[in-house]
């Protein structure tokens, strides 16, 4: 480690409210660089949204944080622990759960079994929190997950990720292709969830983002071009960055 | 003209090596390497260009070999005609099975081909025993007539012939890689949809790749038949199904020199180790594992940058 490290640690201690910190992150697919010097901070209980067009690198950012992609350089720390170089299951176990956008649940397994797997790594078998958020899952417990509708799948995905009370939830396009009623339900759920965890959401649905986010990062061509916080998180302000 | 000229340099260098090998290495080895390179070129094209991995190449090898063998055993004596017939048989065979097979992808393609090889094996060994003579095989070395200029019944003349054929095949693939068709193959390998929406037919592209590659394989089979003067169903046995794929990957997938490098290395390793110690399987097996662990570029893929570096530096020094 370089000698400057303790100083940085000290800095970290000062900033200790930040639960997830990304600094100077550079990521590439093959030789094509996708993310450039991304800086991002998430404080406990915050909802942070990343907006940007398709292909801007939002999903790549989440995947890099979750450990599915190996960054070229930069640092990702969670609670002062360096995440770079860790296996993604390790990162998930530490409480940073990634919910991909493909809505692929384990279709051969029942809803119950899907949840069991969510509980397995964290040993948290308290499913009431899940069924509180998503009462509908209770009825579907013994249904094969493959037979669920898109909205129910998304509920299940989120449900199995929040087991073990993760510190940070990385949610990729949660409302894509879902009916408005489910979107508004999810909106409420996110509002509830932020009491326990920090949320990083990649989303294109501006009304939703504006309603729940504390901070918005606008990403374009792999760079953060604007950081908005507090009052400025408004649809009309965000729009140009999309 | 300039184009053609430049081409020959490439071909020349690769095969000059083989010609040099001819002086230092025993003739049977060189012959084997050349035929095996042709055999592998088809597989390499299929794997590297069109993205098909096939564990059934021996089926097409046997198609060519048996077609040639039937001709030389029952009908005629001219080895050149025999080889032509082998090539034709290869085309016919791949046109028959191709439309069924190329719709499958990936592992399934590999395995239906394996199934074809096994079926072929039992057809030759049992079902068609009346004309193939089963495991006894057909031997016709003495039937092969001496031809003027290049007498294929003599190994040293055969070497020259096989050498020229290999140059031709190599040049053909080199040309093919440069054509639009070659580009289409690569395109179809990674992005079927886009190929479709550019208006090309994936099916036709793949079928053509299948036919070209397997005809090459059949040609290698014909050469084997003429060279050995003998065919038997053993050549399609499932034990040997992986050979061309192993050599392809060993040499380096998708490179033009890969098949040659692979064939030299594989045959060389086998013959050398087999000569030194009886238990060649042990060494080959672990060598394969080691090579796979070391990298996926294969021999040529690893060698190429090194050679380039070496030669370019020398070149630079000279010019200074």
């Amino acid at each position, binding site marked *: 480690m370089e000698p400057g490290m303790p100083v940085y640690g000290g800095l970290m201690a000062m900033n200790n409210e930040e639960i997830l910190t990304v600094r100077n992150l550079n990521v590439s697919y093959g030789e094509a660089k996708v993310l450039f010097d991304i800086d991002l901070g998430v404080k406990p209980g915050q909802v942070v949204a990343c907006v940007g067009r398709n292909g801007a690198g939002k999903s790549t950012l989440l995947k890099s944080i979750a450990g599915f992609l190996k960054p070229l350089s930069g640092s990702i720390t969670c609670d002062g622990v360096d995440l770079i170089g860790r296996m993604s299951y390790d990162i998930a176990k530490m409480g940073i759960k990634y919910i991909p956008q493909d809505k692929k649940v384990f279709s051969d397994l029942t809803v119950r079994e899907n949840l069991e797997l969510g509980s397995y790594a964290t040993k948290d078998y308290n499913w009431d929190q899940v069924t509180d958020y998503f009462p509908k899952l209770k009825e579907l417990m013994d249904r094969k997950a493959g037979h669920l509708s898109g909205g129910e799948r998304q509920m299940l995905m989120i449900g199995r990720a929040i087991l073990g009370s993760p510190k940070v939830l990385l949610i990729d396009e949660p409302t894509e292709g879902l009916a408005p009623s489910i979107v508004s339900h999810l909106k409420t759920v996110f509002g509830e969830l932020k009491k326990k965890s920090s949320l990083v959401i990649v989303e294109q649905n501006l009304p939703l983002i504006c309603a729940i986010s504390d901070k918005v990062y606008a990403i374009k061509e792999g760079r953060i071009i604007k950081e908005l916080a507090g009052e400025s998180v408004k649809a009309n302000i965000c729009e140009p960055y999309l | 003209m300039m184009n053609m000229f430049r081409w020959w340099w490439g071909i020349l260098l690769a095969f000059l090596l083989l010609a040099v090998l001819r002086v230092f290495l025993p003739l049977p080895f060189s012959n084997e390497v050349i035929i095996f390179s042709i055999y592998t070129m088809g597989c390499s094209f299929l794997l590297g260009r069109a993205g098909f991995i096939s564990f059934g190449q021996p089926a097409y090898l046997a198609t060519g070999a048996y077609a040639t063998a039937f001709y030389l055993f029952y009908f005629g004596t001219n080895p050149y005609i025999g080889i032509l017939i082998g090539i034709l048989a290869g085309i016919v065979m791949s046109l028959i099975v191709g439309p069924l097979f190329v719709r499958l992808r990936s592992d399934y393609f590999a395995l239906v081909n394996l199934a074809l090889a096994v079926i072929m094996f039992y057809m030759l060994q*049992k079902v068609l025993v009346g004309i193939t003579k089963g495991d006894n095989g057909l031997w016709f070395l003495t039937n092969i007539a001496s031809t003027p200029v290049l007498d294929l019944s003599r190994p040293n003349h055969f070497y020259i012939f096989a050498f020229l054929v290999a140059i031709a095949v190599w040049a053909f693939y080199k040309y093919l890689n440069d054509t639009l068709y070659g580009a289409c193959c690569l395109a179809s390998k990674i992005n079927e949809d886009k190929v479709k929406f550019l208006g090309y037919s994936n099916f036709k592209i793949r079928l053509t790749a299948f036919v070209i590659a397997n005809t090459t394989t059949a040609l290698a089979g014909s050469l*084997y038949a003429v060279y050995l003067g003998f065919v038997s169903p053993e050549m399609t046995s499932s034990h040997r199904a992986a050979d061309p794929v192993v050599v392809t990957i060993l040499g380096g997938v998708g490179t033009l020199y890969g098949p040659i490098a692979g064939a030299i290395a594989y045959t060389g390793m086998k013959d050398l180790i087999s000569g030194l110690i009886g238990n060649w399987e042990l060494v080959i097996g672990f060598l394969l594992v080691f090579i796979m662990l070391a990298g996926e570029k294969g021999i040529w893929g690893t060698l190429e940058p090194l050679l380039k570096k070496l030669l370019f530096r020398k070149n630079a020094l000279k010019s200074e």
Partner: protein
Amino acid sequence: MGVIFNRLFIEDLKPDYLNQKEAQMKKFLILLSILVFVCVFGYGNALAANPDKIKVGILLPLTGTFAAVAETQKEGALLAVEVINKKGGLSMPWGKVQIEGVVADDEMKLDVGVRRYRYMVSEGVKGVGGQTWAPLANAINAVVSKEPMPYFPVCVNAKESFLKGKLADSTFSAAYSPWTVGYMAGTAAVKTLGKKRIFFLARTDSWGWDIRDGVYAAAKEFGAEIVGYDEVSVGTPDFTTVLQKVRAAKPDVFISAQFAGDAIALLKQCHQMGLNKEMTIFNSFITNVVGKGLPPEALAGVYGMHYFYYDLSDFPDKEVAKSAREFTDLYRAKYNKPPDAYATIAYVAFGEMFRGFEAAKSFEPTKVSAALMANKGEFTSVKGPAGWRQDHAAAYKYAAFLVQGKGAGDRKNEWDLFKVLGYQGGESVMPTLKSLGY
């Protein structure tokens, strides 16, 4: 070199290259002519005419299904080499010539076998022997008939290969064809053992079919009935379904044409299914490898024809018993085990090759061939008098011994596997020369 490499890997020409076009064309032509020169005239090896040391090739499937048998053949061949070398070498007109045995693995694959054979030729061997698997012997014989070389296949060659014109002039088969094996087995089963109902299990190649023809010929001649027939391919691990059919056919004797590992598997499964109690099991050509590989109880009572069983102490012909014992002692001294059938074939074959060299006073294939065929081709083998026939097959007075497997209780030592009950041999067990087109 670098220039050429540039041309290979750099797609775009540098302009100055264009100007050198003619110079390069010259270079190209020079290279091409070198190439052609190398190709056409590079071949050929000058070797001393009267060497004081020669090489002989021993080419066997040391890997593959027949590896176990090939191992014994290798031992037999190397013993034959050693015997000559101990005497100082071959007695040639220019002095003693030592022999070196070059062993290679043909892997039971055609292309590999022919390639390794050609390696041997390019290494300058003076004679080659080997093969366990007949098709490969045929392939090499074909090469030999193009480019003569004293060649001594030590396997049981297909009957077809003995047809006039098929076997090369310099190929000598120390063993007979499978037809003879079948005929001997059939004769022994029907005539000696008095069995009248035969189930025959062939192998799907010339070995199996020739034995079948031989057995059928014997059955016809001595009045037995074939009640069932089936065939399996070499390397079949599981015979049980076929054995079900055998049981259902209720024969007196079950004759099988399996060999080496296949025979072991078959006999073991026969025993497991209790067929031994219901019928006589007759494995047409048995070896010690098979006997040793089987549990004693599975071998007990099984009949078979044995090319050479080492323990001939009870054999009526004391002459043969003596030479057999001498050979066995020699073999035991080197390998600490008695010789097996195929080791003996190899020993006989290589012995004959060396006799041929000495008699011909040369390594010329044609001369060796003529020398071997002189004096009606008669020679003496470790198992008694023998002779080369016109078809280059060896005819023995004692072509094979009828043996019966011993159970655990009857065995005196680990190699005490069989009891010799009789023999078959002479010209009568061979296909007539006329039928072969002579």
